[in-house]
């Protein structure tokens, strides 16, 4: 039977419980579910996953997501290289990762099945669009027989449903072409998943209305598809169990769902407000950083200027020009862009100009894996320039933390008059989590004062932090010239003298090293007095390490975690923390870059746990390494 869309929109759950003639379904409460949506690039899986995420966030679950999409915009339909996936972990517990092995795989075609089946939990659930399992698609995916009827999926619980046909039937009569009607199948599928996981439809209904406001025909079709998918759960006689995941016990407060790139963008606006400076972003489009440029271009009411530059070099040099003029200037890019910006970063170091360089890291080298995540630009950030060229480096650890990491980078840049790197990565950029919304008034004040007094002015004078004054053009009596040639301290005059050069190299190094006195000490999460194993991490590995360490500690392992927000300078107690532990392991999504730094700086025989697959760590991978290294204490 069918319900009318209008009635359902009001209160789907209430309606369903009042329906007659339905088969009995039981409701099972789960702590945690990991769903992986996979389909063609054109199937709208990112959208489907995003909507499920948003709804789950509003239900109150803790969650973490992992969008996993190809670099191609629309690879040929049905091919394995065109498969786009979105993994979501939603839970009533405090979780830290998008989950290791999915419990549920939604496969919209054979290519999505063949590329994602290996990740699925043994005995997991598969929901497939049987309409897409025709000869052509099976051939494209490389199947020699149809997995839906050759028995190869017998280890899984398979729900094979004609999702395409169901969608076409649901939107029939709205005057859509077959192609247009077919596009609604992601909402049909989403509706089914909402039914299985007992989610309300209203968040997505609202989204559809907003998104398709100007095209009421499409809005109506997508609404109908969503409702029909929801109804399918009731009527299809396949599903005997529905599941519920209760709200998580999060810190009280007001929450929203946030992705890393959004958080960086909000951080930029906040940093401008807190420093009292007008904002400037010079950027050249690059995956996975472009969304920050898109976000910032919406915030013109704040007086924030976005400049889509002609190339990566112009993006950073325009930021240097803007900062010279007194703006809080940012540039956003990914690794290949940082490679191009190297010389300009040196100019900002030499001229002691505050800018923030955001590197949303991706797989390298060269073009590498544009849409996949990696942490392999740490050494580039630390050392990737000509000359002795120290730059402070700050790294974000979760999507929401990108906001605070950006604020910290801006604070250091303006207080110490230096370019600062913010490192995030593709996983943080596109991953989402519930984020407790801060009040603007509670954010730390970072007010900037320009120098204006001609009597006390020297361009390269130093304050107690070794920072030089920020004197902007237009200020009478402070006319001065800066540039990339070596400077004399205090006067800022050009000076090629050998002793002056060495003194200035040391001064620039000391200025950056001195930031260690202005940042928090490294915290140990675990055994404060030390123990058998410390897992030292940085950046987006935080969640996987956190989850693994928590579980292993529950099992009695003497394992602790320390996570670096500042990579340059390192917290002043880093050595002290490391030396408290018998073993130090450093998981990184690279070949061991922090590892090299730690070994070189502290002569600690740390061990690298490395993964360079364009994918974040699974907590289970880290757990396994912990178990290999230690035995439980009790």
């Amino acid at each position, binding site marked *: 039977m069918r319900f009318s869309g209008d009635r359902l929109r009001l209160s789907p759950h209430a309606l369903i419980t009042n329906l007659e003639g339905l088969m009995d379904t039981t409701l099972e409460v789960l702590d945690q579910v990991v769903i992986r949506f996979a389909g063609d690039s054109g199937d709208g899986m990112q959208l489907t996953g995003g909507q499920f995420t948003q709804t789950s*966030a*509003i239900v*109150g679950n803790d969650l973490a997501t992992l969008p996993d999409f190809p670099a191609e915009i629309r690879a040929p339909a049905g091919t394995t290289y065109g498969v786009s996936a979105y993994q979501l972990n939603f839970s009533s517990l405090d979780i830290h990762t998008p989950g290791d092995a999915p419990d549920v795989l939604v496969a919209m075609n054979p290519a999505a099945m063949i590329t994602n089946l290996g990740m699925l939990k043994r005995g997991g659930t598969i929901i497939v669009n049987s309409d897409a399992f025709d000869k052509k698609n099976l051939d494209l995916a490389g199947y020699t027989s149809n997995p839906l009827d050759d028995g190869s999926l017998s280890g899984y619980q398979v729900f094979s449903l004609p999702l395409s046909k169901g969608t076409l039937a649901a939107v029939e009569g709205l005057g859509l072409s077959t192609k247009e009607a077919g596009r609604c199948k992601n909402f049909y599928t989403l509706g089914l998943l909402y039914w299985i996981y007992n989610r309300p439809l209203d*968040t997505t209904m609202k989204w559809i209305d907003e998104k398709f406001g100007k095209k009421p025909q499409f809005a109506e079709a997508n609404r109908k598809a969503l409702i029909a998918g929801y109804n399918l759960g009731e009527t299809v006689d396949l599903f005997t169990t529905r599941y519920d995941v209760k*709200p998580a016990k*999060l810190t*009280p407060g*007001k*929450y*929203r*769902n946030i992705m890393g790139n959004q958080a960086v963008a*909000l951080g930029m*606006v*906040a940093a401008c*407000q807190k420093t009292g400076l*007008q904002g*400037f972003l010079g950027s050249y489009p690059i995956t996975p950083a472009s969304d920050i440029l898109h976000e910032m271009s919406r*915030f*013109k*009411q*704040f*007086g*924030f*200027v976005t*400049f889509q*530059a*002609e*190339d990566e*070099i*112009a993006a950073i*040099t*325009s*930021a*240097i*020009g*803007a*900062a*010279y*003029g007194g703006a809080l*200037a940012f540039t956003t890019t990914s690794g290949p862009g940082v490679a191009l910006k190297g*010389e*300009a970063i*040196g*100019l900002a170091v030499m*001229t002691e100009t505050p800018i923030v360089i955001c590197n949303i890291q991706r797989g390298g080298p060269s073009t590498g894996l544009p849409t996949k995540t990696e942490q392999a630009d740490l050494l580039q950030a630390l050392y990737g320039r000509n000359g002795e060229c120290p730059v402070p480096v700050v790294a974000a650890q979760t999507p929401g933390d990108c906001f605070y990491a950006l604020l910290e980078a801006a604070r250091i840049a303006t207080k110490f008059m230096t370019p600062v790197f913010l490192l995030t990565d593709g996983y943080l950029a596109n991953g989402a989590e519930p984020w407790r*919304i801060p*009040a*603007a008034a509670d954010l730390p004040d970072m007010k900037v004062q320009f120098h204006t007094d001609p009597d006390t002015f020297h361009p390269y004078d130093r304050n107690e932090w070794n920072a030089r004054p920020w004197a902007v*053009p*237009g200020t*009478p009596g*402070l*006319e*001065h*010239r*800066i*540039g*990339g*040639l070596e400077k004399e301290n205090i006067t800022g005059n*050009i000076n090629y003298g050998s002793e002056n050069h060495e003194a200035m190299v040391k001064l620039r190094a000391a200025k950056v090293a001195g930031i260690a006195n202005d940042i928090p000490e490294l915290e140990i999460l675990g055994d404060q007095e030390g123990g058998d194993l410390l897992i030292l991490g940085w950046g987006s590995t935080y969640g996987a390490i956190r989850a693994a360490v928590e579980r292993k500690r529950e099992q009695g392992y003497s394992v602790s975690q320390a996570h670096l927000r500042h990579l340059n300078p390192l917290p002043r107690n880093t050595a002290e923390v490391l030396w408290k532990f018998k073993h130090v392991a450093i998981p990184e999504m690279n070949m061991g870059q922090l590892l090299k730094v730690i070994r070189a700086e502290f002569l600690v025989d740390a061990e690298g746990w490395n993964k360079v697959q364009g994918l974040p760590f699974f907590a289970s991978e880290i757990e396994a390494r912990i178990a290999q290294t230690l035995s439980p204490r009790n």
Partner: protein
Amino acid sequence: MDTEQIANGVALDIPVPVLPKQSARDFASTADVRWCPGCGDYAILAQVQRTLPDFDRKKEDYVFVSGIGCSSRFPYYMNCYGIHSIHGRAPAVASGLKVMRPDLSVWIVTGDGDGLSIGGNHLMHLLRRNFDCNLLLFNNRIYGLTKGQYSPTSEEGKKTKSTPFGSVDHPINPVLLALGCETTFVSRTIDREGKHQQEMYRRAYHHKGSSFVEIYQNCNIFNDGAFENLTDKKVKSDNVIAIEHGKPLVFGLNDDKGIKLDGFRPVVVSLTDGSHTVDDLLVYDETNHELAYIIARLTDNPGFPVPIGIFLAVHRETYEDLAQRQLAYAKEKLGPGDLDEILNEGDTWVVS
């Protein structure tokens, strides 16, 4: 309005100066000038320092931005604000500065290597965006600071340190490049022509939009005499034509020659053999893009004089004005930005 009126600011609503009169000396920094003795850069520096005091603007409101090369040392010698940036990138530095600080008078100093080779990309984009900046391109047709390699404006076949058999590169005509970018003010002058230079700088300053000034500049160490036929008193009048808005294209000793258009094709005619009079000549119009292109093509074209002066002066909105207007529009439409509002944007929920 005629050129003189524009040049003198009569028609441009320029306020009467109220500042204490500044002098060339006020614009000279205390830094020792380190160009080679005899370099054409000295003359350019002197003319810029001589011109700026005529404008109603305090010296702290000028910024000189440069890249790398001999010409790029220029900012150090001006007692204004200045950035000596990195090779080729001065236009990009200036773009960021100007969009944030439209109140400043921003001058870019570059050369044929800095501006047309390594920085060609940025030059092009600054000009097409029409930032209200004045770009002085010192063209000496050689790399000076790296000691004598050929540049993008070096003539074909030129023998230099890096081209002992002669260069096989076809040179670029900077004025044509600027016209191709639809630059709103395009001009050319010569280091030895003091008055003409001042006139170009004055017009560039008053022009709202990107002002491109190519300056033929002699490098007496690595490319001495590159422009001798344009500066030598004995021959220059036959080799140079100073184009002026509203005036016929006359040149030569005693103004004995002129240029007329035969269809779209310019031809040199004699004004003394009785075949042509001044009335037959082309009258220059600095607002005519097509004419600017035709005349710019005379450069280094055998049988024609090299044109100097203002090729094009037209109005188009500047990048920074358009950008500032968008900010104002957003503020008006959305209200002044509220950080709490955007932090709370979208779907939210409360955990208690």
